[in-house]
C-alpha cells in the first residue's frame, strides 16, 4: 500500500522534537502542505512560523544552531534552495551549522503548480556547496530512517522529499546510513542508478524485462555519493543509465558521469528533465511529457540496452 512521504515526514519530525528539545521546526508558511504542521499540532513549543521570507528563515536557523538548537527548516524545495541560496552557502554551510533543510514538493510532482513550483536544479545547487550533505529519499520508510540519521549527524543536510503519494514502500531496513546506496537487483548488462521518486518507477519499468540483465541501485545520498558501490556495480556492465526527477545537468546523472569518467569510463545515459521549462499538469501528464513515466523509462532502457 502506498504511504505518504510528507505525512511520514511530519510525524517523524514531531516525534524527534518530542524526544529532543533541541529540535525545532521552522516553517516558510507552507506547513499545512508540507506537513510540518504536524509539529505545531503534536508538540508543545517546537514550531516556529517564519512567514514567507526564506532568506531570513535560513539565517534565523543558523543563529538558533549557534545557541544549541537543531533547526529543521522546511519549505517548497524550489523556494528554500533558490531564494535562499547565498544564505545556505554563507550562514549555514560555511559555518557547518547543524541545520536540516527539507525541500518538500520537489521536482515536477508538485500538485498542478507548474514552472514556478518545480525544482529541477536543487540537487545540483546543493551538491556544489562545501560541507553539505544531500539526501533524496525514495519512499516513506526511507524518509523516516533518513531523518533519524540526519538527527544524529551534526552538520548541514539538505533532504529532498516528494509530494507524490502513490509510492509503495520498497525499503524496509531499520537503519539509514548516510552516503550508502542500496542494491535492489543485480545484473551484468546494464546498471541503472536512480534516486527519489524515480526509483519506484524504475522498479516498475524494468519489471518483466528478460532479455536484459539489469543491475539496479537506489542512491538516496547524492552527496557524499557512494562511489564504492557505483564503481563496484559499474564494473559488471557496459552501459550505465541514471534516472532522476531533476535536470539531467547537475544532479545524479552529472555526478555519476563525473565519477565514471575519472575511474571507469563507459557509456552513460542520463534520464531526467532536459534543458527546458515545464508546464502545469497532473503527475502522470508531467512524467509522460518529460519522459519519466514508467512506460517511457522502460522504452528508453530497452533502447539503450539494444544499442550495446
Amino acid at each position: 500500500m502506498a504511504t505518504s512521504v510528507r505525512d511520514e515526514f511530519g510525524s517523524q519530525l514531531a516525534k524527534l522534537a518530542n524526544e529532543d528539545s533541541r529540535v525545532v521546526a521552522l516553517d516558510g508558511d507552507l506547513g499545512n502542505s508540507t506537513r510540518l504542521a504536524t509539529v505545531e499540532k503534536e508538540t508543545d513549543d517546537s514550531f516556529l512560523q517564519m512567514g514567507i521570507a526564506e532568506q531570513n528563515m535560513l539565517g534565523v536557523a543558523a543563529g538558533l544552531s549557534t545557541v544549541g538548537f537543531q533547526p529543521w527548516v522546511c519549505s517548497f524545495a524550489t523556494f528554500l534552495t533558490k531564494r535562499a541560496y547565498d544564505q545556505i552557502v554563507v550562514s549555514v554551510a560555511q559555518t557547518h551549522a547543524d541545520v536540516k533543510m527539507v525541500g518538500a514538493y520537489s521536482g515536477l510532482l508538485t500538485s498542478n503548480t507548474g514552472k514556478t513550483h518545480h525544482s529541477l536544479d536543487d540537487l545540483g545547487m546543493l551538491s556544489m556547496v562545501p560541507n553539505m550533505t544531500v539526501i533524496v529519499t525514495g519512499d516513506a520508510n526511507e524518509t523516516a530512517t533518513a531523518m533519524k540519521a540526519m538527527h544524529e549527524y551534526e552538520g548541514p543536510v539538505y533532504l529532498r522529499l516528494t509530494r507524490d503519494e502513490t509510492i509503495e514502500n520498497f525499503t524496509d531496513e531499520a537503519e539509514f546510513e548516510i552516503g550508502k546506496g542500496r542494491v535492489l537487483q543485480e545484473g551484468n548488462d546494464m546498471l541503472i542508478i536512480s534516486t527519489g521518486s524515480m526509483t519506484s518507477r524504475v522498479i516498475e519499468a524494468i519489471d518483466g524485462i528478460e532479455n536484459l540483465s539489469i543491475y539496479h541501485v537506489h542512491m538516496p545520498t547524492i552527496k557524499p555519493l557512494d562511489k564504492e558501490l557505483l564503481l563496484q556495480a559499474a564494473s559488471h556492465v557496459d552501459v550505465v543509465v541514471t534516472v532522476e526527477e531533476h535536470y539531467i545537468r547537475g544532479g545524479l546523472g552529472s555526478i555519476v558521469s563525473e565519477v565514471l569518467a575519472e575511474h571507469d569510463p563507459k557509456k552513460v545515459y542520463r534520464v531526467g528533465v532536459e534543458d527546458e521549462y515545464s508546464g502545469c499538469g497532473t503527475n502522470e501528464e508531467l512524467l509522460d511529457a518529460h519522459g519519466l513515466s514508467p512506460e517511457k523509462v522502460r522504452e528508453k532502457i530497452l533502447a539503450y540496452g539494444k544499442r550495446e
Partner: protein
Amino acid sequence: MNQTILSLKELQKMAVEVRKKILFTAHYHKQGHVGGSLSCADILTTLFFTQLAIDPDNPDWEDRDRFVLSKGHTALGLYVVYALRGYFPEEELKTFDQYNSRLQAHPDMTRLDALDMSTGSLGQGISAAVGMAIGAKWLERNFHVYTLIGDGESQEGQVWEALNTASKYDLDNLIVTLDNNGLQQFGWKHGASRGVPETEAGAKFKSFGFDVFEVDGHDLTSLVDVYEEARLMKNNRPKAIVANTVKGRGVSFMENDHNWHSKAPNDEEYERALRELEKGVE
C-alpha cells in the same frame, strides 16, 4: 566576565587607540575597509568596553552576550577591538586579510572563537542575530544579542525580513545598531558627491515594531546612556539604535568621502592620519 568598564576619559582614549590600530592594520598590508571601520569605531568601543557581558578568556561562555557584525566588511574595526579587549595579541593584527589568518577579510567563525557568526554577505548577520535572540528566549537565558548593520546594507530585503520577525517574536533581548554613516561603496550620484543610502531609518524601524533611539554615534557618553537604557527595557519590543556617524571619522581627508570605503592609506597618508588622531587626543 572580564569586566573593563572605563571612565569616559579612558573610553575616549580607547576609541582613539582603536582608530590608530585600524589605520595601522590597514596600512600594514594595504588592505581593509577603512571608512566604515572608522565610522563604527566609537560604537564598537562602547559596546565591547562598557556593555557586552563577555569573557575574552572564555569566548564560548554560554551566557555571554552575542555580537554579530552584520556589516561584515568592517571586520577590520572589530578585530582591532577584539585585540584591545584581550581576545588575541595585538601582534596578530598584522595577519589581517592574509590567507591562513584567523582574521579573514570578512568574519569567519570557524577560524576565530571570538566571532559569534560568519558574515560578509550583507543582510545575513541580522537574521542570525534574530535566531540567537529567539533561542535565548526559548532557553530562558538572559543574554542579549547585539548586531551592527550598515545603512547601505539596509537596502538588502533580508534586513527587513529579519526586523519583521524580531517584532513577531517580541525580542526585547535584541539590540540592532545602524551605523548610519551616510555613504555606501558607490551609491547614487548626488551633485558632485554621492547620495545618502537611508534617510528614514528611525521611522522605518518604528513601523516594524522597534523601540528606536537616535544618537550621535561619535558621542561616547550618549552611546553609553542609550545602550544602558535599551538593555534595561523589558517590554517585549526589539531595540534599534540609529547611530548617526561619519564615514572615515577622525581623519579629516577620509571623512565623508566614499572613496575611502575600502582604500588603504599609503605611507604619507598613514603618517598624516596618525598625527591628526594624536593631536585630537591632547
